[in-house]
C-alpha cells in the first residue's frame, strides 16, 4: 500500500482511535468511520503538513472515502 495510505491510516488510528481493520480505501470517512467536521479538519491539517500540499476547504465534500483522500494527495504529488 502507498505511503499516503499508510499515513492516513495511522492518523485515523491515532487521532480517532479507529480500529485498523475498518480502514480501507473504500471506507467512507464520515459514515463508516464516524468522523465529524473537527476530525476532518484535524486530519487534513496533518496531511497538508506531512506532504506539503494544500487541500482547499471546498474540496472536502468530494473527499468522502479514504481512497478519495489518498488519490487526491497522490495526484497533487504528481504520482
Amino acid at each position, binding site marked *: 500500500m502507498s505511503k499516503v495510505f499508510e499515513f492516513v491510516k495511522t492518523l485515523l488510528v491515532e*487521532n480517532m482511535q479507529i480500529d485498523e481493520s475498518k480502514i480501507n480505501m473504500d471506507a467512507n470517512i464520515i459514515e463508516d468511520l464516524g468522523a465529524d467536521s*473537527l476530525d476532518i479538519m*484535524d486530519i487534513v*491539517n496533518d496531511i497538508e503538513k506531512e506532504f506539503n500540499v494544500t487541500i482547499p476547504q471546498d474540496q472536502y465534500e468530494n473527499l468522502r472515502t479514504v481512497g478519495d483522500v489518498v488519490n487526491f494527495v497522490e495526484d497533487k504529488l504528481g504520482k
Partner: protein
Amino acid sequence: MLNKGLNILVTGGVRGIGKAISLAFSKYESNIYIWDINDNGFDELKSTIESNGSKVFFNKVNIADFAQVEKAVNDILESNNIDIVINNAGITKDNLLMGMKEDEWDSVITVNLKGTFNVSKHIIRSMIKKRSGCIINIASVIGLMGNKGQANYAASKAGIIGFTKSLAKEVGSRNIRVNAIAPGFIETEMTLKLSEDVIKEYSKMIPLKRMGKADDVADLCVFLASDMAKYITGQVINCDGGMLM
C-alpha cells in the same frame, strides 16, 4: 482543588487581574506562562510565584499580533502542552461615539477581541489532539449591559461572549471547556483612572457595597479551571458583587 503541575497561560498576566490570576494558580505547583507587552514588575511577581512553589516563564507577546502569537504558542508546544488558557489581556479607550477616533475603535477591538481569537485559535488544535483543555475568557459586565463612552469596549467584550459560546459548542465533544467571566467593577490600574465620585456612584449600584478585588476574579478562574467545574461550559459568569442581575 486544582490538579498540581498544570501548564497555564495567562495573557496580560503581569499586573491587575492577570497578576492575581497568575498568583492564584501559583499555589498549585503550576507552570505559568505569562504573556504581556509590559514586564514592569515581573521580577517581583516571579519571586512570589516561585516561593509559592510554581514555575513562571515570561514572554513579551502582543496578543493583537497574529503571527507573533502563533510563534509564541509553537515555542511552548515544542516542549509542553497547555492545559489552561486565561485570555485576560485587555484595554480601554473610552470616548463618546461622536468623538471616538477610528484608532480608538480599532485598537480596543483588536487587542480584546482579535487577541482572544489569536490565542485561542493557535492553541485549540493541541487541545483537540489531547482531548482536554480549558479556556477562560475575561469579558466584562459592560459587554452585557453597555456603558456610555465604552461602545468599543462593550462591543469587544460582547464579541468575546459570542466567541466563547461558539467555541464551547465546537470543541465540547473533545472535552474542552470554554467559559467567560464578566467582572464588574474591580480595583486595578484600569479603574484607578476613574474619579472618586464615579467610584462612589458605582459602589451604590453594587449590592455587596464594595468594588471587587482582582482576587475575586482570580478565585473564580481557579474554580472554572478545576474539576469542580467539569460540567460547566459555554457560560458567562458574572463576578460583580451583584451589580448586574
